[in-house]
């Protein structure tokens, strides 16, 4: 039986590393965005796990800020992606090489 803190930290590590792998390996830009969400969630799991034994829940407060920042990041990333798709007609990261048109 694992200690709950250690178990939570392992889950957080796993989520973060999965996010990094998806960001590196996938070709589609939307998959990369999903990977970034997973990385942010891994960081959040770590904060929450440490906040679980803390009487003045500071980790949870930090986690709320992380969620808001993730929402802001995904909105801006999606707007940029729509513009890229409108311009280049693709989201393949390997074919986006030109900075100007």
């Amino acid at each position, binding site marked *: *039986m694992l200690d709950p*803190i250690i*178990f*939570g*930290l*392992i889950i957080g*590590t*796993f989520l*973060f*590393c*999965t996010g*990094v*792998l*998806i960001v*590196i*390996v*996938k*070709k*589609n830009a*939307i*998959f990369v*965005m*999903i990977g970034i*969400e*997973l990385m942010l*969630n891994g960081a*959040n799991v770590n904060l*929450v796990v440490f*906040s*679980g*034994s*803390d009487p003045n*829940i500071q*980790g*949870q*407060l930090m*986690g*709320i*800020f992380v*969620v*808001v*920042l*993730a*929402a802001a990041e*995904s*909105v*801006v990333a*999606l*707007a*940029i*992606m*729509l*513009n890229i*798709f*409108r*311009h280049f*007609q*693709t989201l*393949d990261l*390997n074919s986006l090489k030109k900075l100007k048109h």
Partner: protein
Amino acid sequence: MIEVWMYFFGLLILVSALTLIFTENLIYAAFLLALCLLSIAGFYVIYNASFLAVIQILIYAGGILILIAFGIMLTKRSPEGKVIVGYHLLFFGFLVTLGMALLIYALVVSSTIGPREILQTTGQVREIGIRFLTQYILAFELIAFLLLVVLVGASYSGKKSQHA
């Protein structure tokens, strides 16, 4: 009993994230991300963060996931009619990730945190509200301002292109 739920949600997170690596279908990926985020919300409840769990369901599963689905629908087809999925840098990616995972895992296992009990407190929403408006008031206002900037910036850069 609470350990059973902990392992259950942990297993759900593990399975959905691993399937997310290997799927090539974008719609499946969106639903797997939904499953992953909802199980993370369940995980938060076990670790005494029920307010953050509600926020997670509302914002992630309700907002960000809809955004991602919207992005998938709007960008799916290229003119040749095929969707770009696939992998590159496979060897390098697995190498880097495995090394990083082993490093963090060794750090976690060798840490001297020691077994602590997870608290089960009530009245968290009151506590969070008081702290947001006293101790963290600067961060709270800054993040409100950031949301305003993001709203304006996204609606400006998302409209039809300015030239052409």
